[in-house]
């Protein structure tokens, strides 16, 4: 997105298509970003696809601890013919981290939404197969959250393996 004005025009167009979806626009270091209401993300991405942003490059999560609402999900869109990029961002609170899944529309989001779920605990409603992807199936907690401690797992040695809980698992 070349300038902030174009960003505003795009946001207004989106706001007309999907009622009340745009919360804010940002233009930072030559690239535009739109903050949208979490419930409207599927329609917003659909509208942007019709506008040329038909390639979803990345879906990634963030934790804005200690700000509220804490969890964020960002969708990086690419327009391959206009050579333009756009970020669609949303934030959800920790108590109710639910976002509609875009996987039915964008198959590439499948693994990436699973990663965001695994690492941040964002629940994608409508995802066909929402399971952990990188961490073990029986892992507890979401390790990329900012309040998740580092180095919290005991290291197993031969001298302490029998006294460590679940050492045999």
């Amino acid at each position: 997105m070349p300038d902030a004005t174009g960003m505003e025009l795009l946001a207004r167009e989106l706001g007309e298509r999907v009622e009340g979806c745009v919360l804010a626009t940002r233009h930072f270091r030559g690239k535009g970003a739109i903050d949208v209401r979490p419930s409207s993300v599927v329609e917003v991405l659909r509208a942007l696809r019709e506008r040329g942003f038909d390639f979803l490059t990345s879906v990634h999560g963030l934790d804005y601890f200690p700000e509220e609402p804490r969890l964020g999900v960002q969708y990086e869109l690419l327009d391959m013919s206009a050579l333009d990029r756009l970020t669609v961002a949303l934030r959800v609170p920790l108590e109710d981290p639910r976002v509609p899944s875009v996987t039915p529309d964008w198959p590439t989001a499948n693994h990436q939404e699973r990663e965001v779920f695994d690492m941040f605990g964002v629940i994608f409603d409508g995802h066909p197969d929402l399971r952990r992807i990188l961490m073990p199936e029986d892992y507890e907690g979401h390790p990329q959250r900012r309040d998740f401690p580092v180095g919290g797992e005991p290291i197993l040695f031969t001298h302490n393996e029998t006294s460590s809980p679940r050492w045999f698992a």
Partner: protein
Amino acid sequence: MSTAQPQAASTSAYRRMEESITLSEEKVVEGSRELLTLNIGPHHPATHGVLRLLVTLDGEVVRDVKPIIGYVHTGIEKTAEQKSYWKVIPVVERMDYLSYFFNAMAYCGAVETLLEVEVPRRAQYLRVIHLELNRIMSHLVWLGTSALDLGAISVWWYCFREREMLLDLFEMSTGQRMHTRYIQVGGVAEDVPSGWIERVRAFTKVMPERAEVYGDLLNKNEILLQRLRGVCAVSQEELLALGVTGPLLRATGNPWDLRKAMPYSSYDDFDFKIPVGTQGDNYDRYAVRLAEIHESCKIIDQALDGLPEGPWITEDRKVALPPRHELATSMEALIHHFKLVTEGFRVPPGEVYYPIESPRGELACFVRSDGSSKPARVHMRDPSFVNLQATMPMVEGSLLADMVAALAMLDPVLGGVDR
């Protein structure tokens, strides 16, 4: 006498965990016989890393594949949040262990965009030279191991012979063979030593000839051609929907290459072509990568010809370390050195997504800064991770042996997939 036991009691926790993997619905194909579920990996030479595949077979025909990943997840993105910006570079380099210059470039590019630091021209050219050398190195490892999977052993030795030359070049210019930490925020760590440029020229002179030799060895190998031609083709639309980029996408005829489309690090100065395929089958994937080796050599030659004089790292002392000799004479240099080494530099708050073209597709680094000297979030959009989703459309309905070939042509690096 009844021997049946209650289901819940007989299944162990481990068994239940295993079963949960296949919870997504099983595909029932019309007229198929009894299906067999076969586990391949996580330790298997054909999976090119610690990748586990749960394959549903109908005779020898693949009906379903579920890649199961995470075996080499090391939490690099989490580790990066604990370190100051310049200490993150060696950590992210270890993600995709075949394209370490690219990882460092994506990360440094993102931080430079946040800082609005100008990278000197010489540094940009030196980056391009190393990136392209790295691309050749990555493709050589891919070609060698893929040919090995398909039964052509000698190509592996030849590829690793040339890879050794490249690693020697890296060792000479950066001090390390792998994970070099050469690319820094604001430029590169050091100027190249004298004699290095001549050795790179010698390499770019022999490399195209050697690539021709690989082509001759493989393109006239009837066994290899039968394993590759017309096998596991996927349409361009499907690949785009799956977010696949890089040689896999170019094999279908879409010339999408970020070096041309959205140039970074002065790639627009160089004249090179983007090899594309026509069918999008395994042969095209192979041919595109082989042709890319030639194009990379061309870029390196041009970058060496036009290598500008000047500094190789930014003069901004708030970001880059002062030269060693200044420390003895300049108080400011000493203060800057101390600040950089102890606290590191602070980065203005913001979020940046910086994409580059890695050997496997769009490699992008997302960095969020909260204004402190440590990143609040580092995320790598790794092409291997995204491209791996194309496994299923590639191999569905093909033979099990072709799945091995398709996986080799997919070229996933599991260090990048799991991060």
